[in-house]
């Protein structure tokens, strides 16, 4: 069976089901995990641990494959530099995650569970993504001006 769209739909549905089963569709449970100095709820750590197991195996399998099962080639991230955008973006994401108790996966899955508040968050999130797009693209290794007397 080489129907990539079926793979994508099954992956998305299994991902969404996993979020619902794990309690991660509940923003208060996620905030409970982030409330490290309060009534800490470690559930998210179990979810992350559980998710890392199949993926750690999958990466080992991937190294032995020349191409994916339903696509021509692997298209995987190649960036290696720890640039300010990576760290600044992750920091902002963490702040938003803490404020709302939602990250993109659970928010989209919640469109079926709590449609109104989930939709408000998702629309705002897409707005944030559009705002980012309006920024100038990442500079391509601009030559830095050396100033001797800073």
């Amino acid at each position: 069976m080489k129907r990539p769209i079926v793979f994508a739909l099954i992956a998305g549905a299994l991902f969404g089901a996993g979020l619902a089963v794990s309690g991660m569709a509940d923003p208060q449970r996620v905030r409970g995990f982030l409330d490290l100095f309060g009534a800490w709820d470690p559930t998210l750590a179990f979810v992350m641990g559980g998710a890392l197991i199949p993926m750690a195996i999958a990466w080992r399998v991937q190294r032995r494959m020349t191409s994916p099962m339903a696509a021509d080639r692997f298209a995987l991230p190649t960036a290696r530099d720890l640039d300010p955008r990576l760290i600044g973006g992750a920091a902002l994401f963490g702040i938003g995650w803490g404020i709302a108790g939602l990250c993109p996966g659970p928010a989209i899955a919640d469109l079926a569970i709590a449609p109104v508040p989930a939709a408000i968050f998702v629309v705002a999130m897409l707005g944030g993504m559009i705002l980012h797009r309006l920024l100038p693209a990442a500079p391509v290794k601009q030559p830095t001006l050396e100033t001797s007397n800073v």
Partner: protein
Amino acid sequence: MGDVFANAMPVQGLIGGLMIGTASAIMLLGLGRIAGVSGLAARATGITVDGAPRPLAIAFVVGLPLGALLVALILGPVEERFEQGLAALVIGGLVVGFGTRLGSGCTSGHGVCGMSRLSARSLVATATFMVMGFATVAVMNAMGLGQ
């Protein structure tokens, strides 16, 4: 020990996590792609032209609520406490959307896929958003904005 972490759901968390990881493995081994929800959402909506072919991104993103809906239909109501209020939803959403694009990923792409690949970028990103998440909730609680 009974009341320590009284509300935690370690078993459901682990099972759900295994499902999430398996879904990510299907994306990797089936389609050769990272199951990063923020990137796929941006691709599905046309906000970016980079990444997976758009029909695949749309199928994955549509699958997320479908899977959650299936769980609700089969296992009964899914726990969802949206108590954060309108301002937190809007501000949080804006910041999450902007931040995940700027930082090239979120909990799924960096947290699940990148960390299991031992990507230095993903390890740094995940540590950063975890610490900032902890700090944000701590500051909000200290300011009396706890939920």
